[in-house]
């Protein structure tokens, strides 16, 4: 079962502007290995003098998308790799990548649910892969997403999330905004809370949900604590933390 994770050539096929701070990069990889939603790829950039920088980015697309993966990358202005992706990379460019990588923070439709997905900012990316996989696989696993973003324009995949909810009564998508000044926003406001978690668990009709939490460290810490306090078993909670320097 052990296999090498080899560097492969990926060609940028499409660049999608998601929000002012995030872009998705559709990368075509020959003989793309199968992956599970929640896994990530490593990318490696090489300067003319041989200097290299590597970073890990979560896969946003569903495993069902043949031959390609989408990476949704948030720009960290002071960073080294994300500004390169946002400002330099063009369609047709070649990027060295290897993956998929990661095991515990993964979900496949045959492992069932119900699912509670807790996203902070760009932490929604690997959870979006799970939602896209759920839909592509025709899964009816009951799923609740709570997605905390700063403002409406920062919400990634907003239309698609809305469609998942409107087209499937087994999906509940709750967006809560922490810094939205616009009075026109009628959705939830503030950080993820006991009430939001309790509402989601009520929708799932159990506290014994499979919980995936992803986002900045502070968000993950707080959200995992709330899930524990709401009665979700410790071992049912999987976390992925994007460090403060996830550049």
């Amino acid at each position: 079962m052990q296999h090498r994770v080899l560097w492969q050539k990926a060609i940028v096929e499409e660049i999608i502007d998601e929000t002012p701070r995030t872009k998705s990069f559709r990368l075509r990889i020959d003989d793309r290995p199968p992956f599970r939603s929640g896994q990530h790829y490593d990318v490696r950039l090489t300067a003319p003098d041989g200097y290299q920088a590597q970073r890990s980015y979560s896969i946003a697309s569903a495993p069902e998308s043949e031959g390609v993966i989408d990476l949704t990358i948030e720009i960290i202005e002071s960073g080294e790799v994300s500004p390169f992706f946002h400002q330099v990379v063009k369609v047709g460019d070649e990027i060295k990548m290897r993956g998929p990588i990661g095991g515990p923070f993964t979900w496949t439709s045959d492992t069932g649910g119900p699912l509670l997905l807790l996203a902070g900012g760009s932490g929604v990316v690997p959870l979006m892969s799970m939602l896209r996989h759920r839909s592509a696989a025709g899964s009816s696993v009951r799923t609740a997403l709570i997605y905390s973003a700063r403002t409406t324009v920062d919400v990634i995949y907003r239309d698609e999330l809305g469609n998942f909810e409107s087209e499937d009564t087994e999906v509940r998508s709750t967006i809560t905004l922490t810094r939205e000044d616009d009075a026109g926003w009628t959705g939830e406001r503030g950080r993820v809370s006991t009430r939001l978690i309790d509402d989601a668990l009520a929708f799932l009709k159990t506290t014994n949900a499979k919980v995936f939490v992803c986002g900045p460290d502070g968000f993950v810490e707080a959200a995992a604590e709330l899930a524990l306090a709401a009665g979700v078993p410790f071992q049912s909670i999987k976390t992925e933390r994007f460090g403060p320097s996830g550049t």
Partner: protein
Amino acid sequence: MATRGFFGLRRPEPPREIPPGQYFETGFPTLTAGPTPRVDTDTWSFSITRAKSPLATWTWDQMMELPQEKITVDLHCVTKWSKLDSEWKGISFDTLLEAVGEVTEEYVMIGSYGGYTTNLPLDDVTDGKAWLAFEFEGEPLERNHGGPARFLVPHLYLWKSAKWVNSIELMDQDAPGFWEASGYHMRGDPWREERYWGD
């Protein structure tokens, strides 16, 4: 071959060479696969075991009576960051091993509150290479970084330095721990860039 248009920011510049594929980090990011366990020093215990039977067990107070060392080490996380010159206080694993007599096993499995495990060759945790650490930068180790006590094996990738450590099993044969079973390297030497299976 170079990546079109990439020259590298290379800032901040590390004061000395760091392992390949790493970048210099001045903060201290946290990475954990689950919630942060709550571990109380009143009920904390630590054991060295053979076939899961304790050969030696310490309470927190007993542990704190053992000789302590201050160490300054570099940390290398497989998620690509390296933190240099971090200051720790801990107890050498050599000191702990003295309590169990002769050891013929060649591998260990570190176990933690919360269920985390990671495997290591015995040679990588003896002769002054590994510590049970409980102070960071002069302060009690914070929960999110593994407090009250974590394992510290700074010459290997940081996933080997298990947080919230509570046991060390002596093993005749190597076996994969939590990340090692999911594609991460069995040894994890950052200077050889042993990140994943086959590296």
